[in-house]
């Protein structure tokens, strides 16, 4: 591969032998992280004697730490710790940030993750003094504002899901799953037998089986049918009297609504089990349909997906669980209640509770942001948002299905899932296509699952993508398909325009280097 060709996706650079693909590259408007900056590790830019903070003078008598703590407990200093000025810290992290790609940079169609716009007002209100500063053990009478926010957010989420009660304690979706399955367990145990198995469809996200296992259940996978949905006959066979419940994602990870969800719920209930819904995909449903009407007993929401709170490079999130009346007694302690005088309080007196799943009351700061989003939208805005998210996914699907294989050919909800089968015939897999997409200035889609699609391309544009941006994305995807026909090795070596090229993951895992050490 000659050098100029390798860089042909950079704007304005003349390419070699004109091809359809290259013309496309130049036409497609691009957003890309900064490629030229260099920045060492903070430990490497450090030099002795510097600090980025100065403390105010100590207004109490100084003490001798070594004396107070004793020789055995006293530490002189932390070896290897960085020593840099404030400016160097600002530059260091600013430069690092330019190597990242976020929703603010451009389209981020990472399936199942709902990478929507994170409104700035959310950040502003979460950092207000009082909300960002109240201590979790502040006496209730002095922190009514925080309690009201929690109460109001829980009420809104109950309304959106149609469920009867909500706990905001779980720290993320996976912890919501764990909480939900523990609730099922507590309820069944109360009825006399917690049972042994949880059924999980083969299309489920990896956290589902992992969470069920911590809850003390053995996971039984059930096969999906030709539509990618739960196979009622298969479910019927699997539903023995040892089955505590079913964990169902709806819409499922193919972006398909489980049309028979009522029949599924009825069947599980008829056999004495309960239905858990993984609500990671609620962005397809808000304002359009409510899980309570599906026969679902408990579900979790991901505030960092559906409700616009930032993903933060991997968190924090928040994974509230919503339940029907019958599961309410088992919710984690404390719950937030309103007294008859209108004031709010924490209720610890819940003898049937499963206990706590984390300290304090959950990721409060994330809940503040989610409530700001709900208020900004109102009921009509939320419904319009859902419609746009579904329209965007269908638009992408309809304009790519002639070049990428659609294993389940039907209208989708909030995301669409292609297979790399045609491209794999040329030796190019979904991850390679994803890497090439980076050259075109987009964040890739999800490649890791659902496992029932070989080489999945899971695309979730969300409502935050404009038509213009989607057209760019669609052209990029078509252009890559053409490149794969023309020149597969070129795609296999992508990305060509980033600061670093593909990394040696095998060595990283074989000889793990997980911290910096001085030379």
């Amino acid at each position, binding site marked *: 591969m000659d050098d100029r060709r390798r860089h042909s996706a950079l704007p304005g650079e003349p390419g070699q032998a004109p091809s359809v693909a290259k013309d496309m590259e130049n036409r497609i408007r691009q957003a890309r992280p900064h490629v030229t900056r260099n920045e060492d590790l903070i430990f490497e830019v450090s030099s002795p004697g510097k600090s980025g903070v100065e403390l105010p003078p100590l207004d109490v008598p100084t003490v001798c730490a070594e004396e107070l703590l004793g020789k055995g407990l006293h530490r002189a200093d932390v070896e290897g710790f960085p020593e840099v000025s404030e400016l160097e810290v*600002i530059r260091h992290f600013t430069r690092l940030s330019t190597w990242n790609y976020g929703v603010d940079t451009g389209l981020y169609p990472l399936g199942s993750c709902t990478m929507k716009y994170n409104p700035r007002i959310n950040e502003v209100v*979460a950092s207000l003094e009082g909300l960002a500063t109240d201590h979790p053990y502040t006496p209730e009478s002095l922190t009514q504002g925080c309690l009201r926010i929690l109460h109001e957010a829980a009420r809104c989420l109950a309304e959106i899901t149609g469920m009867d009660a909500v706990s905001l304690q779980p720290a993320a979706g996976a912890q919501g799953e764990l909480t939900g399955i523990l609730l099922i367990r507590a309820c069944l145990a109360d009825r006399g037998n917690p049972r042994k198995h949880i059924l999980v469809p083969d299309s489920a996200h990896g*956290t589902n089986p992992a969470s069920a296992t*911590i809850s003390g259940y053995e996971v039984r996978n059930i096969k999906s049918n030709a539509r990618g949905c739960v196979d009622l006959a298969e479910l019927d066979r699997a539903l023995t009297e040892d089955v505590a419940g079913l964990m169902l994602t709806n819409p499922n990870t193919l972006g398909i609504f489980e049309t028979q969800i*009522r029949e599924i719920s009825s069947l599980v209930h008829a056999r004495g089990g309960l239905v858990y819904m993984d609500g990671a995909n609620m962005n397809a449903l808000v304002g359009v349909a409510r899980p309570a009407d599906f026969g679902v007993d408990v579900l979790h929401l991901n505030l960092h997906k559906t409700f616009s709170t930032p993903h933060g490079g991997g968190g924090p999130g928040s994974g509230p669980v919503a339940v029907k009346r019958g599961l309410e007694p088992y919710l984690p302690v404390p719950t937030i209640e309103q007294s008859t005088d209108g004031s709010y309080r924490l209720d610890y007196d819940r003898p049937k509770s499963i206990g706590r799943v984390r*300290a304090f009351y*959950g990721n409060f700061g994330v809940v503040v942001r989610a409530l700001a989003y709900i*208020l900004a939208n109102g009921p009509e805005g939320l419904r319009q948002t859902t419609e746009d998210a579904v329209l965007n996914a269908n638009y992408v699907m309809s304009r790519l299905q002639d070049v990428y294989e659609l294993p389940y050919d039907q209208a989708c909800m909030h995301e669409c899932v292609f297979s790399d089968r045609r491209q794999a015939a040329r030796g190019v897999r979904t991850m390679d296509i994803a890497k090439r997409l980076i050259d075109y200035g987009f964040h890739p889609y999800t490649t890791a699952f659902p496992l029932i699609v070989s080489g999945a391309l899971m695309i979730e544009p969300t409502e935050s993508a404009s038509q213009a941006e989607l057209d760019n994305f669609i052209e990029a995807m078509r252009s890559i398909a053409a490149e794969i026909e023309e020149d597969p090795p070129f795609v296999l070596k992508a990305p060509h325009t980033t600061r670093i090229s593909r990394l040696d993951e095998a060595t990283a895992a074989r000889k*793990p280097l997980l911290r*910096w050490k001085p030379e």
Partner: protein
Amino acid sequence: MRYLPNSPAERAAMLEATGHQAIEELFAQIPEELRLRGRLNLPGPLSEPEILAFFRQAASESSREYVSLLGAGAYAHYRPVSIDALLSRGEFFTAYTPYQAEIAQGTLQAMFEFQTLMTQLTGQEVANASLYDGSTAATEAVLMALRITRRERVVVARTLHPEYREVLRTYVRHQGVEVKEIGYAASGRVNLDQLQAALERETAAVVIQSPNFFGTLEDAAPIAEIAHRSNSLLIVAITEPLSLGIVRPPAEADIVCGEAQSFGVPVAFGGPYLGFLATREKFLRQMPGRLVGQTRDSKGRRGFVLTLATREQHIRREKATSNICTNQSLCALAATIYLSLLGKRGLKALAEHNLAKAHYAAQQLCTVPGMATPFGAPYFNEFVVQVPAEGEELLAALRAEKVIGGLNLRKFYPELANHLLVCVTETVSKAAIDRTAEVCRRYYSGGLPFPACRG
């Protein structure tokens, strides 16, 4: 709606491209009877000024005008403004888990730095890229110890944060694990006799906290020795890691875990916080959570990737070391920035300020007749004060003077009904400490002589 980028005309064009006439058709897969008729009963839509007004009102119904002496697992420290300036860069906070390393080097390198900082502080060899919070970190540490030792019992100090113990019980209840609790000695430290007696051949781990829930610093060495004699692991949880600026880390521990909220993360009514877990290299493959590793790209340049993913749920599913997926990345970034700003000198100086303030406060409170610090062992920035009567009345009197005077330990330790847990960080001024002591003195004036102050 201001967040949505498409115009009605663009929507219509897109709909046409999909071959549909009406948006309703896209929802045809949802059975008619499952669709919501009517509209959600929610407030809004609100404009930006209206949203601000709503939350400002809530923020005003807070304790922001009060001096707070609350700690107990959540610590008020000054946050340099540079933290939020950097966190608010969209490239950081609007990105997700760095699955695509080529366009996520910013997050990955920062996480690698975070892991390094945590190993330096804790004296361990490897640290992960964060867990939800201290309570789940302690719980994950126990689950890890159960896997490593293939045993089914744990011994937990009652001086481990009470809410952490509750979380632990919730998680292990259905895994056939037995949790035994051991008490504290007159010094406020773990009762070594009880520890000795509680250990069995089947004990997977001993879990202690240092500084413990009473603020007392434990001496990890003898505890480790006892634990290791029965081949159990020692897990040390830390809720106030600023202490590590001047306190020797528990190098004898097999796992050091806890809460790093102190490092630049707001108190924010309990979350989001920053769980961490560090351990020895030999236990690496049993660790929960994400790990960032250093490697090279195809041209030999240094780069960072998520690694050892075969421990994790997306590959291992029901056999994963943990179910965690989304973690607390942005909080870990805050901690990385905070610790970089403080640096070696700043961390030490700040820890010394905390030590000095807390000791000054203890001294002042102990001049009040009837108030004393019952535990003799060294402490960092938090300590227990014994008061002449049930603590609630004094706390109410302090509240009337705009002081939240600490945590009434009765909440978690019925036997300590007349004891308060008091935390004094660098954010509490001498004037506030003096005022607090003065209110106590006035409240108890005319009291009888009480035991003298120790420690």
